[in-house]
């Protein structure tokens, strides 16, 4: 019953592994690293959406991860690899603040609580100057080497990011197929019914929160080392690390395995391309287009691209008489199989 067709895992992985051999341009490798970071955060975010929960609080975990690794490294001389481990733990612990709202609130109320949490952490990071150096931010030292995750070339960054992202995807697939994932998807469909069957839904949801936050923390930590400069408005930016991952996931297809990956791979270069192309033209035009594209994609493909492509594929196969992509593909889609 469970087939995990290997070719579709092996081929993309091989392509990803070999990519730096063909792509020598450092800028493309940089964009690829960005895509990998966003893929990772989106995949992590998506674990909560298996359970039908929409979080806009992942910037909080991302920022906690970034600050953990850089404060430990710069102020206490802790090796960044250990720092990343610490970041995972701190982000997971930091996510516990959201545990109570997660268990008590449903739907948009939880989403709003997560957004408020990001804002609180951002303001605290600005305020706590002795710890975080406030808005001026922290710069990681230029010492290079594998031990410090700092290199001149992009290749090593690429492979480290790829390893992290593949691990995240593997964890996500594993969770999806595990009992936890099964319970999560059941919770997304009808929490009360699942609880009536004797599943401890609170534990299930809490588990997804902790895992998702820890993974996001790891990517936050990696990104901090990658970008060198850590500053509250960026690391705790709801736009960059709460909304964008959610957007990738939704555009790809929320609650599926492949959706977030597809979403991140498409949306990251799109944002870059718009900025590069239109930034010289007139203030704000690139983001205007971005906003409009967003409205159009969500409006025309409410189930995400994966669902949208599926509808198109179906249509072409059945000679244009398919069901179309109109059916909603929110959390409920997770219950349908093929």
């Amino acid at each position, binding site marked *: 019953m469970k087939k995990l067709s290997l070719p579709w895992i092996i081929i993309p992985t091989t392509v990803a592994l070999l990519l730096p051999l063909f792509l020598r341009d450092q*800028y493309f490798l940089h964009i690829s690293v960005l895509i990998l970071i966003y893929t990772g955060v989106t995949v992590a975010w998506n674990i909560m959406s298996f359970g039908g929960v929409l979080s806009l609080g992942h910037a909080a975990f991302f920022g906690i991860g970034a600050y953990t690794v850089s404060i430990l490294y710069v102020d206490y001389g802790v090796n960044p690899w250990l720092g990343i481990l610490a970041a995972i733990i701190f982000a997971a612990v930091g996510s516990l603040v959201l545990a109570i709202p997660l268990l008590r609130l449903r739907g948009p109320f939880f989403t709003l609580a997560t957004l408020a949490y990001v804002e609180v952490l951002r303001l605290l990071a600005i305020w706590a100057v002795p710890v975080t150096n406030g808005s001026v*931010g922290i710069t990681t030292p230029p010492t290079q080497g594998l031990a410090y995750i700092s290199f001149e070339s992009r290749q090593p960054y690429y492979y480290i990011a790829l390893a992290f992202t593949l691990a995240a995807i593997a964890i996500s697939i594993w969770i999806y197929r595990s009992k936890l994932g099964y319970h999560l998807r059941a919770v997304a469909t009808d929490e009360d019914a699942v609880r009536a069957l004797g599943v401890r839904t609170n534990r299930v949801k809490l588990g997804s929160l902790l895992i998702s936050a820890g993974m996001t923390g790891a990517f936050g930590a990696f990104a901090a080392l990658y970008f060198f400069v850590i500053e509250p408005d*960026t690391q705790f930016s709801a736009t960059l690390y709460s909304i964008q991952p959610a957007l990738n996931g939704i555009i790809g297809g929320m609650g599926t395995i492949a959706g977030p990956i597809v979403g991140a791979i498409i949306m990251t270069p799109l944002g870059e391309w718009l900025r590069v192309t239109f930034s010289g033209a007139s*203030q704000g035009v690139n983001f205007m287009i971005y906003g409009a594209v967003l409205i159009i994609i969500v409006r025309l493909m409410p189930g995400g691209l994966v669902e949208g492509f599926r509808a198109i594929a179906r249509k072409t196969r059945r000679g244009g008489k398919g069901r179309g992509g109109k059916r909603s593909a929110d959390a409920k889609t997770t219950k349908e199989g093929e």
Partner: protein
Amino acid sequence: MSPTERGFNRRSFLRYSGAGLLALAAAPALASCASRGTDATTLRLGAMYPVSGTNALLGEESWRGVQIATDLRNAGGGVAGKQIEMVFADVPDVNTAASEARRLVFNKNIKLGFGTYSSSLALAATEVFARTGNAYVELGAVSEAVTTRGYDKVFRLNPTAADMTGLHMDFIQNYLAGALGKPVKDLRVMMLHEDSSYGQSIVSLAKAAADKIGLQHFEAEPYSAKSTDLSSTVLRMKSQEPDIVLAVSYAADAVLLGRQIRDNNVKLGAFVGTGGGHSLASFQKALGDAADGVFDVDFTQIHVNRDFTPGIEDFISEYHKRWNAEPASGHSLSNFTGAQMLFDILETTGGNDDPEVFAAAARKYHREAGTSAAGWGYELDAQNQNQQGSMYVMQWSGSKLETVYPPEAAVRAPKLITPFGL
């Protein structure tokens, strides 16, 4: 029902290959704009400014100055016979700054970058340029950290936060104390600062500067520039009854602060802004006559002693021609001046922007104060910080922000007026 199968079957492959194709299509689109960098006829420089996002206002104003400098220079034959081409990058946030710096260096083959207006953006951009062995010239950010990290090819032409706090204290000691009729040690001074990297880098130096002149009653209070109400800040100010308020504000918050000081009837001996919002023409427009008497410590503004700032007329008339308005603040002028100096240095290398060659030339170059459009001279210290750039004290009078201190740059003497129409 087997939900686990989703995502890994033949149909999904079709979908992913479709998505993959899209992504692949994006790659050449990004690739097609690669450039060869500087060549025999064209000098290609990387310009990084935030023209969207929170810093859009003054980032755009700064970038305008560079555009004017470039066009004027190109019309006059360019640098060492080469035309200048600006490769522009919009950098609304820190990660984008790091990202765009990479694009300029690797995709556009830029060897020499400059910008950046905001300190945290400057830190991010310079890290990339410095760590890839390229040169970066800062024209606007004031945080000390830009030049104190030990990078030998990071230069800064504009004066810094230390110059600002230094001038604050100088002005208090040499003018305000006397005008208010109190010895420095009895003056109560309060610094209100917005909490972005701008405000925080200034306030971090202010305490020490206050100690230096023997200012004993000095308080600093942060606030958020995004606030829509500064009542708390103003009420705290009222209860402390300061003689002098030093404010470090961005744009809309500067207006809000002024209006709420007036609304709450807080009579101050003197109010000294610190660049940013208090230099903006729209600050005066929003407050009207109530802005009269507000002092402002900042880069050179356009109402300055013209003997001290040769070339400023060209700048103003060119600005008028292009945007049909007065410069919104001195940011355009200082970036204009910085860009001109940058071109002059490149002139001495024969238009060679190789990082080593440029760095050597930049360290050798010299210019007296009072010979540039902003009145700045040029002489680098050991950390590649220009020592001859200076800040001035301006004062609002009607719709003009007139330079009043120090005397060599002033158009008139300072006047003590209770600010905000009180």
